[in-house]
């Protein structure tokens, strides 16, 4: 568990918060940081040189841009992945700015280098080159620019850079923005706050890519709605902070759920099925719909193939694994876990739906009729009260 530091131009040091990372992870980090250290130093040499050499060595410019873009990616990857205490993200931004400065001086060269992009203002060209610098390909750039309604270039750039800085690669950023153009309408401040919140939760890079893909609302939704879900998970379900992060990144759809229903789902798993917290996280239990969970579990239970564990967590028969119940397709569930037929399961689902409808109806009217029924019960006393009466 060593520490690696890299010096940048401004003399600030980057630190690794390795206490939170497993040993292997931190070793990899060390290596990356070391390599990075060298590259950074090289790059610093590059920067002053490039300005001058640009004019002389135009053919190489493209490659250098590639290199710097990939470097940038490495820097941000190393900096933001996994660590809960956010590293100062000021550094990468500085580099972005420097790149921007660098490129603006070489506009004319750009125009010569590249196939003509759809004409427009120089602002637009600035945008394009910034995007290219960040590692987007021409195709990506085209796609981003064609998103309707088209955002202001600055807005687009800001949102895009935020995502890049959170460690998402250009391709997924592009896909996400195409799929959910509403992301581009977000105010920058909101984007800032949300980014740092996500970083705090430990959702970045690949994890964020996945979440962004399934559930872009993670950026657009109100903070209070995210808080509500996190609160249910932490306070009602008693998941640990790490478990909550795992859940959010693996089952991002929980963000869309009604907090009450999410809690019910957890309770069903915990009390009815005897699934503990870590198994719930590991098997991505919370992503499945409560209907599917109830159908398959109740079916198994009534078949006699699943038992609710007793107080000591024991059952008389070995219960099938969660993955064999929920993760598999219905056909496989029926043949390998339930040993039953599709027709029987279809009928069962209908019967169960009706039962639940009637349960909920009787619950709603239950409070009203209780007093009536208690009077009725008093009259019937002699017949069947022998056991209860004490």
């Amino acid at each position, binding site marked *: 568990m060593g520490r690696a530091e890299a010096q940048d131009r401004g003399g600030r040091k980057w630190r690794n918060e390795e206490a939170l990372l497993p040993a292997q992870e931190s070793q990899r980090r060390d290596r990356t940081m070391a390599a990075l250290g060298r590259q950074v130093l090289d790059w610093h040499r590059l920067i002053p040189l490039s300005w001058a050499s640009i004019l002389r060595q135009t053919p190489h410019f493209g490659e250098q841009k590639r290199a710097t873009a990939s470097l940038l990616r490495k820097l941000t990857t190393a900096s933001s992945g996994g660590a809960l205490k956010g590293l100062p993200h000021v550094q990468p931004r500085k580099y972005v700015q420097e790149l921007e400065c660098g490129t603006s001086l070489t506009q004319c060269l750009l125009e010569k280098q590249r196939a003509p992009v759809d004409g427009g203002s120089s602002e637009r060209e600035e945008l394009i080159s910034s995007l290219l610098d960040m590692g987007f390909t021409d195709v990506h750039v085209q796609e981003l620019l064609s998103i309707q309604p088209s955002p202001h270039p600055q807005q687009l750039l800001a949102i895009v850079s935020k995502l890049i800085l959170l460690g998402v690669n250009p391709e997924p950023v592009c896909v996400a923005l195409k799929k959910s153009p509403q992301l581009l309408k977000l105010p920058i401040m909101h984007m800032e706050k949300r980014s740092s919140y996500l970083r705090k939760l430990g959702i970045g890079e690949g994890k964020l890519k996945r979440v962004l893909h399934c559930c872009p609302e993670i950026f657009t939704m109100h903070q209070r709605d995210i808080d509500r879900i996190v609160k249910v998970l932490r306070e009602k379900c008693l998941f640990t902070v790490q478990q909550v992060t795992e859940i959010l990144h693996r089952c991002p759809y929980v963000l869309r759920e009604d907090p009450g229903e999410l809690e019910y789902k957890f309770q069903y798993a915990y009390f009815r099925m005897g699934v503990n917290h870590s198994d719930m996280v590991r098997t991505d239990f919370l992503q499945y719909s409560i209907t599917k969970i109830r159908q398959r579990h109740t079916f198994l239970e009534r*078949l006699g193939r699943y038992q609710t564990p007793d107080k000591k967590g024991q059952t008389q028969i070995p219960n099938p694994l969660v993955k064999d119940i929920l993760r598999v397709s219905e056909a496989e569930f029926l043949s390998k876990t339930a040993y039953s037929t599709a027709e029987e399961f279809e009928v069962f689902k209908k019967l169960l739906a009706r039962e639940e409808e009637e349960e909920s109806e009787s619950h709603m009217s239950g409070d009203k009729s209780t007093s009536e029924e208690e009077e009725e019960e008093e009259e019937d006393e002699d017949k069947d009260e022998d056991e209860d009466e004490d």
Partner: protein
Amino acid sequence: MASLVVSGARHLLRRADFAKVLRRHRHKKKWAATEPKFPATRLALQNFDMTYGVQFGDLWPSIRVSLLSEQKYGALVNNFAACDHVSDELEQLHARDFVNKAHSHGELEPESGQTAAPSPASWACSPNLRCFTFTRGDVSRFPPARLGSLGVMDYYLMDAASLLPVLALGLQPGDTVLDLCAAPGGKTLALLQTDCCRNLAANDLSTSRTGRLHKVLHSYVPQDVRDKSRVRVTSWDGRKWGELEGDAYDRVLVDVPCTTDRHSLHEEENNIFQRSRKKERQMLPMLQVQLLAAGLLATKPGGYVVYSTCSLSHLQNEYVVQGAIELLANQYNIEVRVEDLTHFRKLFMDTFSFFPSCQVGELVIPNLLANFGPMYFCKMCRLT
């Protein structure tokens, strides 16, 4: 974890009881401090898992899930309500008369040369019975029966499998009939529907249950028919019938008290699996043998008896039949022959799910697609 338990989990734990309990039959909250830890319904299920798991093997899970889920009903058309539109209305709902279906099924099949061609009297079904059910896989429910123009209800909702013992008895016009354990009255009503009863004696030991029998008869059978069929309702001890009315009846139905398997999984009240009724439950097979023996003694020589239960247990079914036959042979020197109901079973195979390996008699087993039964029945002929 205390907070986890309090917040709504109680509601879930209640639902964790496999069987659905009617609200008024749950434990009395006023006195009980906690939920009953081991309700009788749960004891019943445990008992079944132990015995039937062994008895039925791989078939048990599908029977179990069916028993725990909502059962399927049949609508026995009331011939005395004299409304033809009832059949039409029921067909509109996409229900079909399974008795009719069975008969046409039987006619289509050529009489393949069996070694022992069953004599007509033994497998002919009791006539005039119409009972509608929904098709396999259809979970629709029948609307409640309504009062017809003649002041009696238009149909009677019952487990369709309950009709099979009555069909198997094969009533013929002019028969004197005894229903030894008649309450609550579904089968008794069916016997009357055949219009074959010169005399019908309906008996049940319990007076409260005979009360229900009276209600059913009043709601479904007009006074003149009851008079014509000389329906006599009594509350005597069925075991005494050999002495009371020996050798008197053409057809006898002995639908004995049993562990009422399906009912015992859902109803807590007066459940026979309560610990306080353990002795009673263990004595059941003996009681059943005595009742069947009495029924046989009350049959005329050459007459027929059908024994039926709504339990899956060997001990209450085949063992009782064999025990009663032995008893009659040894103590009374009376010979009784078990009738083969294979042909009968084939008629109804499309509607019901039968257990393939009964030593004697037939057993309808619940299945999600045809959630009728359990219903065991065995037909016997008193030879001497």
